[in-house]
């Protein structure tokens, strides 16, 4: 098997809180293959957004990170000086954020911002060239009348158009790794569908891998080849989307899939909806053992000790004593 584009081993992130450190990510191991679309799913507090910010080196000041290894294109990121790490952003890595309203600067024209984000990648090009590239890319992602729109401000764009601008920015720098954090969550349903179509459409334009972070199982099933399931700061299961969603191995994955409502399912109206009893653990005062054990229908004595992520057949991994 070819070496993965990105290999994360033993990633730990803590946030300083008033009550003490919150362990937001714990011993996370993930491989992102070359030219793959990897979905990271999990509920709130699972650490999926923190994972994205860690990879981009954009964690807020109160976060403390320690990783045994972050190997990206054969380079160890954790030992890279900050300045070199910064130069990876906007050249080898880029990110599309959840809220396209607040993620674009309200006081500058779209064009100005689209030009400046290319400078790290293309220091040799003139502002004029960069502007032309930007306008062409806006047309590519379906922004009508792109040349004129370059001098418009974010508030003059609709939510869907703003997200197209964000995607155009990512395409402009041709990253090897594109991270999209809930790229459609803030959008209305029919606009969300358009953006999903756009992402599918530009998939081949990006000669690299995409990490799609989402709480929506449907979206991940729709767009991704691989999936990483996270719970309370840990990876509980990984594998090909069809395998994981078709035959989940971890009790949490299974329970979560059960909770996804199928509106077409022939069920009695009065029948109770599935749910996972209890609530995710407090990340400041983590209980010992398997993180999911307190809510797990299949917990037993061994769950008092945390299970390691182990490999299964068919390139899958799962962190559960039962497998």
């Amino acid at each position, binding site marked *: 098997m070819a070496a993965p584009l990105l290999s994360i081993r033993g990633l730990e992130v803590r946030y300083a809180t008033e009550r003490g450190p919150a362990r937001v990510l714990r011993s996370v191991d993930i491989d992102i293959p070359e030219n793959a679309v990897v979905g990271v799913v999990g*509920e*709130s507090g699972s650490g999926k957004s923190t994972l994205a910010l860690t990879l981009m080196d954009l964690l807020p000041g109160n976060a403390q990170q320690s990783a045994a290894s972050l190997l990206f294109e054969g380079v160890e990121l954790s030992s890279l000086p900050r300045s070199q790490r910064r130069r990876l952003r906007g050249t080898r890595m880029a990110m599309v954020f959840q809220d396209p309203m607040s993620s674009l600067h309200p006081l500058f024209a779209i064009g100005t911002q689209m030009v400046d984000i290319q400078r790290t990648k293309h220091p040799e090009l003139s502002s004029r060239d960069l502007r032309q590239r930007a306008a062409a890319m806006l047309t590519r992602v379906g922004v009508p009348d792109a040349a004129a729109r370059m001098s418009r401000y974010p508030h003059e764009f*609709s939510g*869907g*158009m703003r997200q197209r601008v964000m995607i155009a920015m990512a395409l402009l720098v041709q990253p090897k790794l594109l991270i999209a954090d809930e790229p459609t969550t803030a959008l*209305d*349903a*029919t*606009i*969300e*569908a*358009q953006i*999903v*179509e756009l992402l599918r459409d530009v998939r081949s334009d990006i000669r690299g891998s995409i990490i799609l972070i989402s*709480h*929506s*199982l*449907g*979206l991940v*099933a*729709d767009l991704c080849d691989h999936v990483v399931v996270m719970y309370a700061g840990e990876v509980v299961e990984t594998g090909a989307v*069809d395998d994981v*969603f078709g035959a989940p191995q971890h009790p949490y994955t299974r*329970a*979560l*899939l059960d*909770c*996804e*409502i*199928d*509106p*077409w*399912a022939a*069920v009695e*109206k*009065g029948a*109770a*909806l*599935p*749910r*996972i*009893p209890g*609530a995710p653990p407090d990340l400041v005062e983590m209980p010992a053992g398997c993180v999911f054990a307190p809510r797990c229908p299949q917990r037993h004595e061994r769950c008092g000790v945390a299970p390691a992520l182990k490999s299964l057949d068919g390139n899958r991994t799962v962190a559960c004593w039962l497998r």
Partner: protein
Amino acid sequence: MTDRAAILQMESVVVRYGRLTAVDRLSLVVGDGETLGLVGESGCGKTSLAKALVGLTPIDRGRILLDGADTSRGDATKRGWLSQRIQLLFQDPVASLSPRLSVRRLLQEPLRIRHALTPQTWQEVRQLVVDLGLSESLLQLYPHQLSGGQARRVSLVRALAMRPRIIVADEPTAGLDLSVQGELLNLLAQLQRRLGLTYVVVSHNLNVIGRITDRVAVMYLGQIVEVGTTRRIFDRPAHHYTAGLIAANPVLDRARRRKRTVLQGELPSPHDPPPGCRFHTRCPAVQERCRLEEPALRPDAAGHQVACHFPLDGG
């Protein structure tokens, strides 16, 4: 049409904010004891309609009948008449609780409003708190100390303490994780069975709507474009917008995903809705007639209503 007795009738209701018409000549009947879903994207007027139903937003034209009584006339305009019949669950439960009051005070408030705060009624409310799976220790807390789920239940107890017959729920699962939303929905279902409540559920989550409602009304730019039983709407949508909306819903089932059509274009400005059929700018099956003539909401033989000149098969 529903086979139940009508509890709530909207007749050509118009809601305006200045020059913006948020709800335009909307007529809809809600049956006693049913769960009606109200779906549509932002700006379609569903929240304005919900507010109009509970009297938060005045209606400019048309009327709303509750149990046959016009809510803008006579006794029904007295304080307390409406609030003891219809209650609203807000989308943001924490922000909808007054921040400087303890949960205890918040829960006593509906009783004080009804001038019915006695040890016995308070005991009933506390029982309701326990029934809804809340701990009594919560009474000491303030809204900002509650989780989203807890705040939602506190709001629910407050609403129920007014003994309403109808509850309008605005995005009841917004902000709730997949693994816990079932709990709240189950609770709502239990309460409905126990108290004979009627629900109007406003939501953009089609999975939830498809599962918990009896009937669905689809809104677009301030008007209803289709109303019918939930099964019918999901299985055989007649309006092209309904079909597009349902197709846009990302679902796990790969077989369903493959055959989806994506609606093009964006919502026109509600300040300046298109002439003719309001959906014609985005409709995949648009004809000349659609640009000129506004389609009326018409029932078919089975009572399924759709506002389209050229509905999808069987419409």
